[in-house]
C-alpha cells in the first residue's frame, strides 16, 4: 500500500501539519499545561519580543521561544508552516530597509524588526497548536457569556451544513449555465455570477435556516432565563410506556439552571 505523502512512520514524529497553527496531538509538557497558563506565557513572550532591542536580548529570546516551541514536541516542519508568511514578509521589510538606508545601515534594523515580528507570533502559534478545541471551548465558557458562546458554536456547527449547501447550489447553478468553475471565476467578468447565482441563494438559505433554528430553540425555551438552563428529565417522572387503554399523565418539562457537569447531558 502506498504511504500518504508527507508522513513518516516509525518512532519519528509525523509531519502531518496541513496548515499553519493546526492543533497537533502530542504528549508534551506544554500540551498538559492549562489554557490560562499558555495564554499568560504567550502574552509574556510576545511582550518581551516587542521590547527586545539589542542582539543579546534578541538571541536570548529566540532561544527561549524555540525551547518553548520544541518542548511542545513540534517539528521544524511545523515551525516553517507557522512562520512561512512572516518569512516572506521579512524579505519585503529587509528589502525596504536596504532601499531606504543602504545595505550596510539597513540590514541589521531590517533583520531585527523582522525577527521581533516573528517572535511576537510564535507563542500564539504554540497556544493554538497545543490546545485542543474542547479545552478552548471549556475555557471560553468561563469567560464568554453562554448566549455568545452558543452563537459561536452554532456558527462552527453549521460549517459542514453550509459547505454542503454551497456545493449543491453551485452544482445546480452550473447546470443552469452559471460560470462558477474555479478557472471561470479567475475572470472578474464572471464575478457577477458568483454573487447573484451563488451567494444570494446561499444568503436566502441562511435566512431560512436561521428562522428554523431560532424557532426550534425558542420552542425549547432557550434563552428565557439569564442563566443557562437544561431539560431535567427526572422531573418528568418514569419513562412512560404508551398504551392505548391506559393514558399516561404528562408532566410538563421544567427548566432548571445549570448546576453541575452531571446534569449537563440533556441541555436545551
Amino acid at each position, binding site marked *: 500500500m502506498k504511504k500518504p505523502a508527507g508522513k513518516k512512520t516509525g518512532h519519528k514524529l509525523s509531519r502531518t501539519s496541513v496548515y*499553519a*497553527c*493546526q*492543533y497537533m496531538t502530542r504528549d508534551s509538557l506544554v500540551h498538559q499545561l492549562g489554557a490560562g497558563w499558555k*495564554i499568560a506565557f*504567550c502574552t509574556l513572550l*510576545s511582550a518581551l*519580543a*516587542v521590547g527586545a532591542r539589542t542582539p543579546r536580548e534578541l538571541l536570548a529570546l529566540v532561544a527561549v521561544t524555540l525551547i518553548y516551541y520544541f518542548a511542545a514536541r513540534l517539528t521544524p516542519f511545523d515551525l516553517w508552516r*507557522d512562520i512561512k*508568511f512572516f518569512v516572506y514578509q521579512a524579505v519585503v*521589510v529587509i528589502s525596504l*530597509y536596504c532601499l*531606504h538606508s543602504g545595505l550596510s545601515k539597513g540590514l541589521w*534594523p531590517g533583520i*531585527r*524588526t523582522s525577527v*521581533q*515580528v516573528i517572535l*511576537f*507570533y510564535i507563542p*500564539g*502559534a504554540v*497556544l*493554538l497548536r497545543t490546545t485542543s*478545541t474542547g479545552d*478552548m*471551548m471549556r475555557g*471560553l465558557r468561563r469567560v*464568554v457569556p453562554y*448566549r*455568545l*458562546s452558543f*452563537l*459561536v458554536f*452554532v*456558527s*462552527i456547527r*453549521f*460549517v459542514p451544513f*453550509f*459547505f454542503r449547501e*454551497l456545493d449543491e447550489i453551485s452544482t445546480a447553478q452550473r447546470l443552469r449555465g452559471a460560470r462558477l468553475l474555479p478557472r471561470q471565476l479567475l475572470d472578474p467578468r464572471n*464575478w457577477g455570477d458568483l*454573487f*447573484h447565482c451563488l*451567494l*444570494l441563494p*446561499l*444568503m*436566502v438559505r*441562511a*435566512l431560512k*435556516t*436561521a428562522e428554523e433554528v*431560532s424557532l426550534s*430553540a425558542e420552542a425549547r425555551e*432557550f*434563552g*428565557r432565563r439569564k442563566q443557562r438552563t437544561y431539560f431535567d428529565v427526572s422531573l418528568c417522572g418514569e419513562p412512560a410506556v404508551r398504551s392505548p387503554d391506559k393514558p399516561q399523565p404528562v408532566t410538563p418539562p421544567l427548566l432548571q439552571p445549570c448546576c453541575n457537569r452531571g446534569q449537563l447531558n440533556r441541555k436545551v
Partner: protein
Amino acid sequence: MMHTPERMFLWRRFTLREGILLGFCATFIILARAGLRLHLHLPGHVMFFTMFFFLLARGCVPKTGSATLVGLIVSLASFLLGMGTKGPAVFVKFLLPALLVDCAGYIFPAFVTSVVACVLVGSVSAAVRALSDTWIEWLSGMDTEIVLQKTIITASLFALYAGLSALAVPSIIRRLQRNGLIDQGEDEKR
C-alpha cells in the same frame, strides 16, 4: 395577522433569529477563509469575502453592533479552529473593520443600499485592517517610513479587494428587501 414582539436574546439588541443569522455570516467568512487559504496565494484577497459578509450582515440586520458581533464570532471561531496565523491578534484583525462598518452604519444607516457608500466604507474598513499588523511593527521599533510604505501597500490591496466585493452588496440587499426577506431598516438608528 398579529405580530407578537420578539424576545431580545443578546445585549438587549438582537433577537435569537438575528443572532443566529449573524452567526451564519461568520460561518461564511470562515468557509471563505478555509477555501481561499488552500487555493489562492494573492495578498489581501481574503478581504474580498470578509468585507462582503460584514457589509451583508449589516444590511440583513440593520442594527448598530451587527457587524461587530459577526467580527467577534469570527475571531472566536477562528481562534477555536486554529485558523489565525497570528494567534490572539486575530481579534484585532476582525474587530477593527467590523467596528468601522458599524460606525458608518450609525452615521448613515442606509449606506448598504448605496453603491458609492458601500465601496467607500468597505475600502476604508479593509484598509484600516492593515493597521492591525502595523502597531506590532511600530512597537518593535521599525523605521516609521518603512512601516508607512508597507502599510500603504497592504492597505491598498485590502481596499481594492474589499471595494470590488462591496460593489455587489447593495444589489443583493435590495433584492432581499424587495422579496420581504429582510427588514427595510429605515428607522433603526439605535
